[in-house]
C-alpha cells in the first residue's frame, strides 16, 4: 500500500544491478545505534475504502452551519463551481515551482495574470506570486521597510490580533521594536502620527477595513507617515476593493492582505493566500516569486520567474526572505475566481456585503438590549454590545444551525455579514436575538 510500482522480481534484478543482496546494505552509513529494530508504532495501512471512511467520519464530526455571522479573518463567500473544477485540473495540481519555463508556460501565465489582477484591484504596480497567508504577508511587508536606524514599527490595534502576534514574532526575529497604537472609538487616531517623533520608525501598519470592520482614514495616515519618512502599510480585504477606495487611490505604496475571500475555501484556516502589492519602488525588495514577461529565442512572448537575485536559492543569507514554496495553487484559484466574478461580479459582491451588513446592523440596534459599540462607517463587520451573554446568544443560534458572531468578550461580539447569507437568514438571526433578549 505504498504506491511502490516495482514487483519483487524487478526489485531483485535492481539489487543485482547495484551489486548488493539487500536494501539494508544501501543503508551502510546509518549508525547501528539509530537504526530501528522494530516497526514504527503507527497503525497498519488501511485500504483506500477504509481511509475514505475514516476521514469522512472526521469531516462528519464538524458542523457545517446553514448560515454564518462569524468572520474575523476568515469569510464565507459564494465560490463559483467553475473555480473548483478548473483549479483541480491535474497539471496545475501536480506541477512544481516553474523552474523550467519551457514546461510551465501555463502555470507561469496564470501567475502573471494573477499578479496583474491583484495590482489592478489595489491600483498598484507590482505584486509577487504569493506569500503563505495574510498574517505572514503583513510581516514580510514590515521586513521590506526595515532600514538602518529604522528599527521601530508602529502597529495599529485595529490590526487583527493574530496578525499582530505574527508581527511580534517576526519582529523578535529581526530585533525590531513594535509599538502598538491604541484605538479611539475603534479607529487609529491620526493625530497620534502628527504628534509623535517618528525618526526611528520604518513603517506604520494599519488594517482597513480593520479588525472591528471599520474603515480607517488611511489616506491621512499614509500622508502623515510619508511626511515623516515612514511607510504606511495597509492590510486590506481584497473583496472590499470592489466598492471602497483602493490603496493606490489613497496614496499607499505598500499593501498586503489575505486573499481567502477571493474564492478560497475557509478550510479551517488554510490553505489561504497572502498577497503583497506595491508601487514600483519596491520592485527589487518584494519577497518571494515574481513572474515576468519576456521573449524566447525565436522572439515569442513568454513568461519566466524573474528578479531571482532577491531570492534564497541565489542570495542565501542575503535574500529578502527565506520563502521558497509559496501558495501558487491558491493564487491560481483566486485568479480563476476573479475571472469568473469579473469586473461586474466583484463590485456586486462587495456591494452586497456592505448592504447585507448594514441591513443586519440596523435591525439589531432596533432590538432592546443591543447597541453598536463604535460609530464609524464599516464594510461587512461591526461590533455589537449586548446585555445578554454572547455565549448564550451563540448557543441559541447554534440550535438553529446558525453560527453566531465572533465573541470579543462576554458582552461584545463582532458580527460579520457577507453576500452568502440571504435576507431570510438575516431575519431569522434577528428573530433569535430578539427571543434571546426576552
Amino acid at each position, binding site marked *: 500500500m*505504498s504506491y*511502490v510500482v516495482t514487483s519483487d522480481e524487478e*526489485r531483485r534484478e535492481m*539489487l543485482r544491478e547495484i551489486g548488493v543482496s539487500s*536494501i539494508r546494505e544501501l543503508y551502510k552509513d546509518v549508525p547501528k545505534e539509530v537504526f530501528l529494530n522494530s516497526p*514504527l508504532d*503507527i497503525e497498519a*495501512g488501511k485500504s483506500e475504502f477504509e*481511509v475514505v471512511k475514516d*476521514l*469522512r467520519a472526521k*469531516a462528519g*464530526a464538524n*458542523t457545517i452551519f446553514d448560515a*454564518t455571522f462569524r468572520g474575523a479573518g*476568515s469569510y*464565507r463567500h459564494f465560490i463559483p463551481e467553475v473555480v473548483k473544477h*478548473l483549479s483541480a*485540473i491535474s*497539471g496545475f*495540481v501536480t506541477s*512544481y515551482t516553474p523552474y*523550467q*519555463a*519551457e*514546461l*510551465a508556460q*501555463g502555470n507561469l*501565465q496564470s*501567475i502573471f495574470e494573477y499578479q496583474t489582477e491583484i495590482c489592478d*484591484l489595489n491600483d498598484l504596480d*507590482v505584486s509577487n506570486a504569493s*506569500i503563505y497567508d495574510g498574517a*505572514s504577508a503583513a510581516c514580510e511587508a514590515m521586513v521590506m521597510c526595515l532600514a538602518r536606524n529604522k528599527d521601530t514599527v508602529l502597529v495599529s490595534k485595529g490590526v*487583527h490580533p493574530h496578525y499582530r502576534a505574527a508581527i511580534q*514574532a517576526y519582529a*523578535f*526575529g*529581526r530585533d525590531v521594536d513594535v509599538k502598538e497604537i491604541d484605538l479611539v472609538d475603534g479607529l487609529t487616531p491620526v493625530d497620534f502620527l502628527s504628534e509623535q517623533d517618528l525618526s526611528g520608525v520604518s513603517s506604520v501598519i494599519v488594517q482597513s477595513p480593520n479588525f472591528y470592520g471599520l474603515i480607517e482614514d488611511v489616506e491621512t495616515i499614509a500622508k502623515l507617515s510619508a511626511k515623516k519618512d515612514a511607510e504606511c502599510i495597509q492590510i486590506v480585504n481584497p473583496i472590499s476593493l470592489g466598492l471602497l477606495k*483602493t490603496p493606490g487611490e489613497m496614496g499607499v505604496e505598500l499593501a498586503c492582505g489575505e486573499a481567502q475571500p477571493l474564492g478560497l*475555501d*475557509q478550510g*479551517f484556516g*488554510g*490553505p489561504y493566500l497572502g498577497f503583497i502589492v506595491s508601487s514600483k519602488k519596491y520592485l527589487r525588495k518584494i519577497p518571494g516569486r515574481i513572474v515576468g514577461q*519576456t521573449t524566447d*529565442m525565436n522572439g515569442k512572448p513568454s513568461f519566466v520567474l524573474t*528578479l531571482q*537575485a532577491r531570492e534564497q536559492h541565489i542570495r542565501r*543569507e542575503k*535574500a529578502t*526572505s527565506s520563502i521558497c*514554496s*509559496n501558495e501558487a495553487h491558491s493564487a*491560481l484559484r483566486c485568479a480563476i475566481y*476573479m*475571472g*469568473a466574478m469579473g*469586473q461586474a461580479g466583484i463590485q456586486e459582491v462587495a456591494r452586497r456585503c456592505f448592504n447585507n451588513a448594514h*441591513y443586519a446592523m440596523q435591525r439589531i440596534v432596533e432590538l432592546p438590549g443591543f447597541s453598536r459599540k463604535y460609530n464609524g462607517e464599516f464594510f461587512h463587520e461591526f461590533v455589537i454590545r449586548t446585555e445578554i451573554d454572547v455565549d448564550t446568544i451563540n448557543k441559541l443560534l447554534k440550535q438553529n444551525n446558525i453560527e453566531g458572531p465572533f465573541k470579543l468578550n462576554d458582552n461584545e461580539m463582532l458580527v460579520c455579514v457577507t453576500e452568502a447569507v440571504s435576507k431570510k437568514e438575516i431575519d431569522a438571526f434577528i428573530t433569535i436575538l430578539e427571543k434571546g433578549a426576552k
Partner: protein
Amino acid sequence: MSLIFEKSISKHRCTILPKQDIEDFQVDASLLRKSEVKLPEIAEVDLVRHYTNLSKKTFGVDNGFYPLGSCTMKYNPKVNETCASFPGFTDISPNSDAEDVQGALAVIYESDVALSEITGMDKMIFQPGAGAHGEFTGLLMIKKYHHERKDFKRDKVIVPDSAHGTNPASAAMTGFKVITIKSKNGIIDLDALDKVLDDTVAGLMLTNPNTLGLYDPGILEITKKVHDCGGLCYYDGANLNPIMGICKPGDMGFDCIHLNLHKTFSTPHGGGGPGVGAYGCKDFLVDYLPNPIVVKEKGAYHFKNVSHSVGKVTAFYGNFLILVRALSYIKHLGSTGLKEASESAVLNANYMMKKLKETYRVAFDTFCMHEFVLDLTSFKDEYGVKAIDVCKRIIDFEMHPPTMYFPLIVNEALMFEPTETEGKHTIDWAVDVMLQIAEEVKKGELDFSKTPFTTEIRRLNEVEAARNPIVKYEH
C-alpha cells in the same frame, strides 16, 4: 497563448450570484473606489477554455517522470484529494468553537501523533506555511530558548555549504549570523565543525541525508559536539523520504525539525505550494511553540496556549486541507508502507545512479540515499555542453529535468531524485534518455545551446526579463 485580458469583451460575464434581496445602502462618496475595476469580462465557457488550455502547458507528475532532486516529486494519490474535498473540512471556519470542529482537531492531533512517532519528536504542529517557514519558526524558538535562559551571546547558526538556500536565509530572518562550514567528501568535516563551535553558537541546521543524497555516518558525533557547546540541533526534513521507519531524527540527536508534507507525505506541489511546514520539537521546547497547540483531554480535543510561545507565524493553524491529504497518505501506507516507500526510494536512486555512472561522473561515488548528483564538468570542458543544455534537451523527451546547479558545491550539477513511485520500467526509460543525450553530446551533431527543440517556447531571455521587468499586463 493570449492573456485572459485580451479575451475580455465588454459586458460578458458568468452568472453566479442569486437575486439581490436587500436594497442599496448609501456609502459616503469619499469612501468609494473611483478607479475602474479592470478585471476580465468573460463568459464561463471562455474562462473554462482559457484555463484548460493553460493546464495543457503545465507539466506535472501526472504528465510524466519528474526527478527533481530535493523536491520529492512522488505521485500524489487521488484518494487524498477526495478526503480533502469533504465539505466537513472545506466549509468550516478556523474561528469556529472547538466543539463544532472536533473532527478537524482530530486530524491535527492524529497527524501530530503519527509524525512525532516517525521523527522521534514529542510534538508536531502545522502552522508554518512551507519548509522554509518551518525553519523560520524553529530558529525563532531556538533564539527565544537561549534568551529565556539569559544566554544572549549566542548569535550564530552553523550551516554546511551543501545546505538548501532556505537555511541561511531563515537564519538571517531570525537575526543570526550564518557560519558556513565546508564539507569534506560531501559530509560534515568534524575538524571544521570543531573550529567554529563555541559559546556563541545558537545551533546547527542540518539535513541528513544531505543534498548530495549522502547519509552522514558521523551524525551522532556532530549533534553531540553541538550540544556540548550549548547549541541546539535543527533538522531540515526536506530529505526525510529515504528514512521513514529506518531511523529517526530524534534518535540522531536533533532537538527540532521541520517536514515538508508536500514532499515526503505525497501532497501535491500545486505549481509552487501550498505545502505544509510541519514543525516538531522535543519536550523541552514545547512551551515555545506558536500558539495554540491541540491537545486531547477527557476524550475531546482542545486548543491550548503554551507559556513561552514565540507568537504566531500564520493567522490560524496552517494549511489544514493539505494536512488532511498527508494524514490520508499516512493512514493508507501505515507502518509497513512508510518503510517500504523509503526503501524503494533508496533502491530506485541507487539503481538509476548505477546505470548512469559509467557514462556520467557521479559527484560522490558511494551508495546514495534518495537522490544523487552528477557532475557534468567534463561535458562542459570537452564539448562545451553545460548542465542547463542537457536539462533543456531532456525536455524534448517529455521528462522533467533534474534539479540543476545545486548543491552549489558541485560544478555543473544535476541532482536526480526518482522517488519510490516510479517503476523500474520508467527508470530504465529515463536512463536510456540520459545515455542517448550523452551520445549526442559526444557526437557533436546537435547544437545544444538551442535545446529544447520540440517545445513551443524555447530558451527564454531571462536577462531581459530581469533588466526590464514586465510583471503585469498593461491594459
